[in-house]
């Protein structure tokens, strides 16, 4: 078997403009605050999962905060960010209130995807966070499409597309890097190399472990940053974004980092040793950055503690908000399957005039039905009155 570097040796040397210089004090404080917020949010999300407040899978990005904040802060507000199923931090760094992210985890109506997506499918169009995606590699072509639209409209927006080391083995990786290079699309592809594709170590899933080189044969130059260092990540991604914005061609950035927790909450972590995790935890990006700021005299220990307390308070408020937010109304089950415009009629393939007539008569009496988990999909007369009305209105408008 090919000898791949041990995780410790994979810790990168810096490239590009790396003075590792601190930004101004205000920005430095904001970065630390946001990294702390992500850390505390993720810890609390894990607790809520253990208390069964959160369903499904829960993928935490504890350990990856510097990668998230350093890269996202290299973007302008009008740039797009698109991510994976490990996406809470990406929503938070874009400014989605933690209340709405937590409410999404709780499956509540005030969730940032209105309780339809859950942990893996956060979304915030207004802040140009174009989503978390549950299919490994599924977001890469979509990122290229977003960049195509930017280019087509003559905007100088850039799309930052993050994905894991595991996704670099998907067909969409090669296909998308090729088409992005061919069409000169403004995408920064950022592979967040957290050393594992689920429970399979990098050297066991990828023949080439120097991931920044994986785009070379596709015409996409590579860069690498220390994903445990927010300053290095910021410097490298800034350079990548600037190149992409100016040269109108994609760049691949490998951020070398480490996921401190399991792949999801259902992960006994038998694929790695406690010692390995402990070694990486010595490089924990949060205390490392805080120490840097304290050493430089930007903040003092008391201010660091206050930042932590603020994050904890914000996360408490998020949990309180999520608890108080209602579950989506049963009659909203069919909302937003389709965009119903004035030309819409019979979008639900099994709806008939007879049913619509029945609905009109029985709609009021049936309010609140359908929340019992029965197979509403096959029960045609469960289509809510609201939809019937919309369809009827559409028919009147067009006939």
């Amino acid at each position: 078997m090919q000898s791949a570097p041990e995780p410790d040796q994979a810790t990168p040397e810096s490239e590009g403009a790396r003075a590792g210089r601190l930004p101004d004090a205000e920005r430095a404080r904001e970065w630390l605050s946001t990294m702390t917020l992500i850390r505390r949010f993720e810890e609390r999300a894990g607790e809520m999962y253990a208390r069964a407040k959160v369903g499904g899978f829960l993928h935490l990005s504890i350990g990856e905060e510097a990668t998230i904040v350093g890269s996202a802060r290299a973007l302008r507000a009008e740039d797009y960010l698109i991510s994976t199923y490990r996406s809470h931090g990406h929503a938070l760094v874009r400014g989605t209130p933690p209340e709405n992210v937590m409410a999404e985890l709780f499956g509540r109506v005030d969730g940032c995807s209105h309780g339809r997506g859950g942990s893996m499918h956060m979304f915030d169009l207004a802040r140009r966070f174009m989503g978390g995606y549950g299919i490994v590699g599924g977001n890469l072509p979509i990122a290229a499409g977003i960049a195509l639209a930017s280019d087509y409209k003559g905007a100088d927006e850039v799309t930052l597309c993050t994905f894991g080391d595991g996704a670099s083995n998907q067909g969409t990786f090669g296909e998308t890097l090729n088409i992005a290079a061919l069409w000169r699309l403004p995408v920064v592809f950022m592979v967040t190399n957290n050393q594992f594709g689920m429970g399979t170590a990098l050297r066991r899933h990828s023949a080439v472990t120097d991931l920044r080189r994986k785009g070379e044969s596709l015409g996409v130059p590579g860069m690498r940053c220390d994903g445990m260092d927010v300053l290095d990540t910021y410097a490298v991604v800034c350079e990548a974004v600037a190149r992409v914005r100016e040269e109108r061609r994609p760049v691949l950035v490998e951020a070398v980092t480490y996921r401190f927790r399991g792949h999801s909450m259902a992960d006994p972590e038998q694929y790695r040793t406690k010692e390995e995790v402990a070694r990486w935890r010595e490089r924990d990006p949060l205390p490392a950055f805080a120490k840097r700021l304290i050493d430089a005299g930007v903040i003092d220990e008391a201010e660091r503690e206050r930042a932590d307390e603020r994050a904890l308070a914000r996360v408490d408020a998020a949990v309180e908000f999520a608890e108080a937010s209602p579950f989506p109304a049963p009659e909203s089950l069919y909302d937003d399957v389709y965009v119903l415009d004035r030309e819409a009629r019979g979008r639900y393939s099994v709806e008939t005039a007879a049913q619509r007539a029945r609905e009109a008569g029985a709609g009021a009496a049936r309010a609140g039905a359908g929340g019992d988990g029965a197979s509403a999909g096959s029960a045609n007369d469960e289509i809510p009155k609201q939809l019937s009305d919309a369809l009827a209105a559409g028919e009147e408008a067009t006939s």
Partner: protein
Amino acid sequence: MAQLRYREALNAALREELARDERVVLMGEDIGVFGGAFKVTEGLLEEFGERRVRDTPISENTIVGVGVGAAMTGLRPVVELMTINFALLAFDQIVNHAAHIHYMFGGQANVPLVVRMPQGAGHQLGPTHSHCLEALFLHVPGLLVAVPATAADAKGLLKTAIRDENPVIFIEHESLYGVRDEVPDSPPAGTVDDGGRAGAPEHLVHFGQARIAREGTDVTVVGISRMARTAERAAQTLADEHGVQAEVIDPRTLRPLDLDTILTSVAKTNRCVTVEEGWPHGGVGANLAALITEQGFDDLDAPVRRVTGADVPMPYSKPLEDMAYPHEAQVVGAVLQTLERTSGSAAAGPRASGAA
């Protein structure tokens, strides 16, 4: 009114929509310099340029995904896939992404994307280029599915598809590209269609409105895609040789489905035969039979009978291929059986009931 081939009607629809709406962009393998594998996009690169008519690499899943992302952020992409079998490579982007994004993100984004593809047997292209897979797409909430059988519908439905805010799977039939039909330049006299928004009224076919291809009183025959035409020929034979008046319905779109028109017809004829080229299990006919039974049972004098493709991968050899999809004779035979008259014409080919 003009006589156009099916492919020319599609080409006209694309040309008109490209001219009408700057957001419309075409993408696909060999649609530009080559002019399209079936020449549907011929001349469009020359007319609209490389910015709007884009040859792509052979990367079906990614082409569709690029369309998804571009549609989410303001374009109206029309992606051509060379055959419906190749669409299976793009199933992740079509089902997990295009169909689900509007719902999964709480209605914040939508995907006004058209994915065009031909299907169908008859050209000896064997098991990876010949299937009819509309049932796979029909299954998925979030998608709209159009299956035009005439040049007029090809044009009118494609223009509507491009204007729709939802992802549309637009399934053309490979054997129909050369077929000529009358294609209206504008809506029928006396109707007002504001679909054109600016300029003169134009020929649009709304989704969810079946076409009654032939009126009749004895039996309802629902034909899907090319089979609507096969059913029309069968109806002529039934009238000429058996004195049977069949009503032929072409749903034109499977999602949304104009079940009202079908049920109204069945209430009149009391008998129904469905005709499709796809496989019998979980097919379009199976779905129709269930819906008609659920909602029109009291009107039925006989079970809904299905004519389907044979339950096999499409064979290459010509005699076998001919047996593997329905022809006029099987439709005539199924109709006579449902009318409880004997028939000698359904002996060969696919089983009329779709039994496997």
